[in-house]
């Protein structure tokens, strides 16, 4: 398992670096703009394929299978959303519309990811001790107030379409809820291998949060490729990697 883990880690770093280097090439006008979304699409397709390959090998008698199935499903929706988004850039050479069809799938991604985390919180009947509760409440409140003050309120008072506002706020609050829930689970499993899967999930959602915050500010001047995409790509790869790491624990040899 250790060798496979190392090999997969290297592969995922490559899957991140390839589009990243192409993006740098695009920035310095060395390569055509379309190359970046093509590489992005290639990376997420391959990472999702590997995640599915490992997940399908997991013993379905395991009670947690259904929980992780929700996450895999959410990743598929995220993939479909990204693919539609990239379609505009690759084939029509234009910026994808926002709000657009992709947003239906992005919304489904949040819904399924939420179902994944709440399934485990319910299944495991999590019990937090007072200090853990205190820590989670404090961190959540600080993060939430910063998010509302710095991002949500400016979005709400901006002169954009109500649907755009709603989606931007939905994505940001969605990120926040997923982060808090995943953090609760990670604290529970601290020290075990399962905690690693949740740590990758948290990192993935964190990358997504950064991207969503920046996206809410700069949409309109987004263009065919934007450096924000690097965070979205990182987010997708980390989420896929968390599925792989978790699946490897339950594969019947």
């Amino acid at each position, binding site marked *: 398992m250790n060798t496979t883990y190392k090999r997969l880690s290297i592969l995922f770093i490559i899957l991140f670096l390839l589009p990243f280097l192409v993006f740098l090439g695009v920035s310095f006008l060395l390569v055509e703009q379309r190359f970046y979304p093509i590489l992005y699409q290639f990376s997420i397709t391959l990472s999702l394929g590997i995640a599915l390959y490992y997940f399908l090998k997991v013993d379905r008698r395991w009670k947690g299978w259904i929980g992780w199935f929700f996450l895999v499903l959410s990743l598929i929706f995220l993939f479909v959303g990204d693919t539609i988004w990239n379609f505009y850039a690759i084939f029509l050479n234009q910026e994808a519309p926002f709000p657009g069809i992709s947003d239906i799938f992005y919304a489904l991604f949040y819904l399924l990811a939420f179902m994944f985390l709440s399934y485990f919180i319910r*299944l495991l*009947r999590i019990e937090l001790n007072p200090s853990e509760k205190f820590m989670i409440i404090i961190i959540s409140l600080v993060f939430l107030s910063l998010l509302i003050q710095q991002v949500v309120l400016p979005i709400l008072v901006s002169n954009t379409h109500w649907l755009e506002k709603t989606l931007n706020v939905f994505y940001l609050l969605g990120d926040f809820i997923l982060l808090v829930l995943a953090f609760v689970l990670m604290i529970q499993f*601290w020290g*075990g291998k*399962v905690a690693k899967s949740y740590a990758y999930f948290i990192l993935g959602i964190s990358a997504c949060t950064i991207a969503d915050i920046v996206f809410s500010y700069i949409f309109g001047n987004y263009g065919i490729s934007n450096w924000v995409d690097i965070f979205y790509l990182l987010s997708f790869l980390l989420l896929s990697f968390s599925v792989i790491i978790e699946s490897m624990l339950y594969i019947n040899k």
Partner: protein
Amino acid sequence: MKFPIGKEIYIKTPAFLINIKELISWFRLEKFNGVLWGESSNFITEILIYNGVVPKAYTIRETEILAEDNASIEIFVNDFIARSNLISLYSLEKEIVLSILISYFSTPKIFQEETYLFVADKLVEEAKKENTISHILIESPSDKIHFLFSKGKFLGCYQERDGILKDELSISEFFENKENLLSFYQVREEEFERLNIPSLKFSFIEEDITSWTKKLLEYVNYVINYYTEFGMYIKNMESLLKNLKILEKSLICSNNNFTVKNEIMESYDEVEKEVVELIARINRELAGIWGEKFVKQKYMQAYKKFLEGNQNDKVIIELLDRLNPENIEF
């Protein structure tokens, strides 16, 4: 005495000073050979122990046999519980016990024939044949004399009148009396293994050890099922039994549940120790995946729930003391 008096381990000790369960466990563990005596006011129960198990037992009053085998053990145990007997324990060499056993469980070559028909020296020569176990029994009107042989050697003789084991081989004198009867038993060493030697049980005391072990396993399985409810499971549960001296050969795991495969003959203490180790192994394995804190939390919940469900069962409560979460190392 039906059996010879061997090397004294303890003698005429009041029953209340003896932990009989531990004693039986010790017999099993050490594969003890010897005789256990229980003396009541007017009778004695003699229990022969071979390799830790009981093949033969008698309760006698002077020379009269009052009870035999299971009935005899029942008397011993009842007196023990009533604290009305004195316990003595004697060890014997394994070869001596083998020689005694063939007189009960093999077909005699000579059976209750008049001694004058035989030549003592020739018989002894036959008894001393290499690779054989032999037993010469002479029944006089007033006593029975046993001559024990194994692997070509004379091991000793004893008279049932006193049970004292003697080294000298003065067999000829018994052949002169026409009233004496001779029986001769002999088996080859390899044939001995094929003899049907029974293993009598120490009544409910031994049944208790088995049922306690089952109770402990009931608890282990409860904990495993409790973990499974939360999605915590171990791929190869049977591998956890590896290198456990008793449980590896006595348990089987199917559908994530442990059951007894072979009768557990060892000490209860040892079994309990290994069950504690088994639970610790399960917890360690799961802690590696789910983290120590979470597994500990779930173990405590399982322990409490199991206790709550068995609140009226004092035996369980006593049994589970060692499996308390505080005593389990992760």
